[in-house]
């Protein structure tokens, strides 16, 4: 192939792309859809359930304060600290529950794998930025709240290319 033909073909290939749909995701106006409600783990089978690994969610009615999640995180990021909670639960004699520092957490989900009581899951919430480091520390009562996550677009592929729609 001659130099001239090669250059013309390269230019032609570029020009043809003017008709290809734009692939850019217009974050934050649009947000991606996720599968499921976040990464979860089933201790009876020992296998996780696929989902996004975002901010955690703690179920106060299930957490026994066994600290296994904090022990799992010790080797990873030391993001979990066990703190006193004002509530009284029959199954949680010491009234302690995990508090997670998202300034340290790497979102590996090994704490979720460690929890034997279905008390700690992950959610689709990934917008955790804050102005202070203290605001990144989520207390058990903050972790209890189920996040509202806007999910509207997914990748669509048709003859004119892929796009987020």
């Amino acid at each position, binding site marked *: 192939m001659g130099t001239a033909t090669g250059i013309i073909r390269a230019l032609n290939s*570029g020009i043809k792309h003017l008709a290809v749909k734009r692939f850019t995701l217009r974050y934050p106006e649009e947000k991606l859809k996720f599968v499921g409600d976040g*990464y979860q783990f089933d201790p009876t089978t020992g296998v996780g359930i696929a989902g996004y*690994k975002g901010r955690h969610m703690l179920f106060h009615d299930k957490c026994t304060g066994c600290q296994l999640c904090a022990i799992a995180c010790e080797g990873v990021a030391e993001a979990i600290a066990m703190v006193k909670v004002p509530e009284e639960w029959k199954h949680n004699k010491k009234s302690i529950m995990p508090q997670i520092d998202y300034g340290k957490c790497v979102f590996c989900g090994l704490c979720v794998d460690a929890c034997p009581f279905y008390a700690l899951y992950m959610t689709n919430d990934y917008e955790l930025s804050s102005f202070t480091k203290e605001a990144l520390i989520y207390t058990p009562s903050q972790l209890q709240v189920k996040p509202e996550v806007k999910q509207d677009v997914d990748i669509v592929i048709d003859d004119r290319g892929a796009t987020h729609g």
Partner: protein
Amino acid sequence: MTARLPPGLQLEKVDDRIMTLNVGPQHPGSGHMRLIIQVDGDRIVSCDPDPGYVHRGEEKMAEYRNYITNIPHLERPVIHDSCNILYPYCLGVEELLGLEVSERAKYVRVIASELNRFTYTLYWLAIYGIFLGHSTMFMWPAGDRELAIDLLEKLTGARVTHSYFVPGGVRNDLPANFEDVCLRQINYLEKRLKAYADIFYDNPILIARTEKTGVLSREDAIRLGTTGTVLRASGVDYDVRTKEPYDVYDELDVHTNVLKNGDSYDRSKTPWLDMLESCNIIRQALEKMPKSGSVRVKLKPNPKGGNDEVYKRVESGRGSLGAYIVSRSKPEPYRVKLSVGSFRNLICMPYLLKGEKLGNMPAVYWSLNYWPVEADR
């Protein structure tokens, strides 16, 4: 008082014609490294690569964590290829602990590691494009990479640093409908990859820029111990996936792409051909995968290995990637050593750049498929 300064910072006068240039350590590519280059006019007289700026002590850290909590930090050296960097570690630990991985988990691992080959190689290709001033070739791979990232996000729950492979299988099973979405996006990605030929690989400007620069002969490639795409570009048919198949690669039909010139052009083309081959591998794996079954072996807390040692290796985006693990009957490994392709490919840089024009330095440097953070670990 110049004697105490580190190498490269001394103002040594070799000759009136020769000038020392420091390329880096703030490199626009990825991670920090420095090339100490001596030039005569615009000819490179000598090149001394100076890695080590992003050394994090991953191997030492691994000695203080158990086999499971080692996973999140061991994948940090190459976050774009995090499944592949964990692969040899998981294979090794499985042998030490005597775990039997299920057939389905093996196929899921193959799919995840081939998807990671896309995310790594497309990122590498995007940077190669911008190194050569071809900004379209930066935009296209960086955009198309999103297709593979999206699949990995659905599968593993994270866009990079998936922490997905564990000794004993993978963390979670495929999400619902994953096979169809994967097939659709891989088919489209293959179409996109083929479109790179006209604008980049057959482009006479790229060919003029990279052909016959930094030629690594077949003998030198073997002598210097290069692996992966660099070795295959020099005409040696060697790929760990076919020569020492691990997991289910022996049940799949894997074709190795071998080019023979060993110049920057061939070295930039082999990763692209590898990606096209990855599309075939993923389609085969999706078809042959058992439709149900467990994907993870249930481990007891703090599993221990015997007094044993093991070496396993896999084919990563940058070449063969090995993990040597020594166990001394403790929950923590006694020693973990990663033997990475990047470092071995770096070794040929002084040989290739000698006598080359300074302007060709980026074309040769990045074609070596070198990832500074992985080489430093």
